């Protein structure tokens, strides 16, 4: 049997037994502690088909996309700073990035709540601040590992810095830019719910908080399960495919 088919069968067996065990165990404990898988599946369907609830999911998606775009722009600006002014290299690599990288996400969130109040802007700001160090680190690595000979070739072919930047530097950064987006996507889903729960006036985190206060555990389980499925699906269907194309184009083994 092919390895791939074998793996798929094993995964199916694993999840079937997992859901079976969950189903059996859910009879032993009260519903508010562990709702059964059938219950959770039904709740997911209700959430997806309900207009106002699926709007909350869309809102979370908007928060994430905005944060990813802003973090990418800010991150690329900071990452390129040392190339424009070499003096800032030490500051960016040894002071700013470690500082941002160890600053607590909850800290940013609470500061944002104090500054901007409870709204979508707070959520986007907090998620952006968590994502920025990831963007800086990835793009800095990309700029650092750039092939110096190709850059020299570009410099000898044209004096226009702008042309060199657009035609050589940017295309060589594609794999790192993609890695940045991929990591940002994973991390932002992890933190966006926290941000919405404390500082948002909408989104899946807000729904989670409401469900938590009303002890609607089915909704909590449904939201978490939906999110996991969504993240895994986008990883498999979108990110892995683009990665394959990039790997082929950039001859990564």
């Amino acid at each position: 049997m092919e390895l791939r088919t074998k793996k798929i069968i094993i995964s199916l067996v694993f999840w079937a037994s997992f859901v079976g065990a969950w189903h059996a165990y859910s009879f032993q404990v009260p519903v508010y502690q562990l709702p059964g898988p059938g219950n959770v599946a039904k709740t997911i369907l209700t959430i997806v088909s309900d207009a106002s609830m699926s709007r909350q999911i869309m809102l979370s998606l908007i928060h994430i996309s905005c944060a990813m775009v802003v973090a990418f722009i800010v991150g690329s600006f900071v990452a390129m700073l040392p190339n424009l002014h070499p003096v800032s290299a030490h500051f960016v690599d040894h002071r700013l990035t470690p500082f941002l990288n160890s600053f607590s996400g909850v800290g940013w969130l609470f500061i944002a709540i104090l500054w901007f109040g409870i709204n979508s802007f707070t959520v986007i700001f907090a998620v952006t601040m968590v994502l920025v160090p990831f963007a800086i680190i990835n793009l800095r690595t990309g700029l650092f590992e750039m092939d110096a000979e190709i850059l020299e070739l570009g410099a000898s072919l044209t004096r226009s810095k702008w042309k060199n930047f657009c035609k050589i530097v940017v295309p060589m950064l594609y794999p790192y830019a993609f890695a940045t987006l991929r990591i940002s996507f994973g991390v932002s889903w992890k933190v966006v719910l926290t941000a919405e729960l404390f500082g948002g006036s909408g989104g899946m985190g807000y729904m989670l908080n409401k469900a938590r206060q009303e002890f609607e555990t089915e909704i909590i389980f449904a939201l978490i399960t939906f999110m996991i499925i969504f993240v895994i699906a986008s990883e498999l269907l979108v990110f892995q495919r683009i990665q394959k194309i990039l790997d082929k184009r950039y001859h990564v083994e």
Partner: protein
Amino acid sequence: MWNNQVNKTAHLSELLIVAVCGFWWLIAKDLPDFVLPTPIEVLISLITLLTVSDTVGHVFISMSRVLAAVLFAALISILLAVLSRRNIFFDTVIENNILVVLNSFPSVGWAILGVIWFSISDGTVVFIEIMIITPFCLINCLQGFRQMDQELLEMGKSLSRNTLRNFFKLHIPLAVPFIIAGVRMSYGIAWKIAIVAELFGASSGLGWLLQQAQNQSNAQRVLAVCILIVLLFSIVDGLILRPMARRYSVNTMET
């Protein structure tokens, strides 16, 4: 001479920090304290925070929770990584299923579920932190155990039949660089993201302190606690984890 030049730019770089603080002060001086306190006020708040005996207790509690979580996460990851090497069943289940799901699990989800399942206690906080940081550690451990030199393992087998001896004398030393990288990463994530556990499941620790400050709209204290967390992270990372990572790095092993 080159060294001198590097030093010079480094010094100039430090001036940038002063410039950033100056800029911060310039903006903050006309704004009310609860919006943006000046750097001096935050520093004073940090010092008063550190001189109160309570804070030391909170720092100690948070630190022990984080360390316990990192230790357990590392043990679980090593165990799973070893298990995944045994046969294709465990390999598929652990790497293609458990890791993928843990990796996309929202951190606040664990916090809410932890409180529902185990109510509020120290154990709950540690549980939540373990669940949040385990995938980060597991990725590294899996890689470490997968990239082992098969010939070395074969040699070990031909020298001794004792599996335990082979495991401790060969497998673990070969995987150590990856395990340390995983521990270092988990430690960072624990302070950055997993501190959310203390907002739900505890009435002590730095996360709780942060929430208290936020409830009182005390921006100085929020910033002071954040800086305290940055300091705690950097001290342990710089003094213990980074030297260890350098000592056992993959590159030095090869040479």
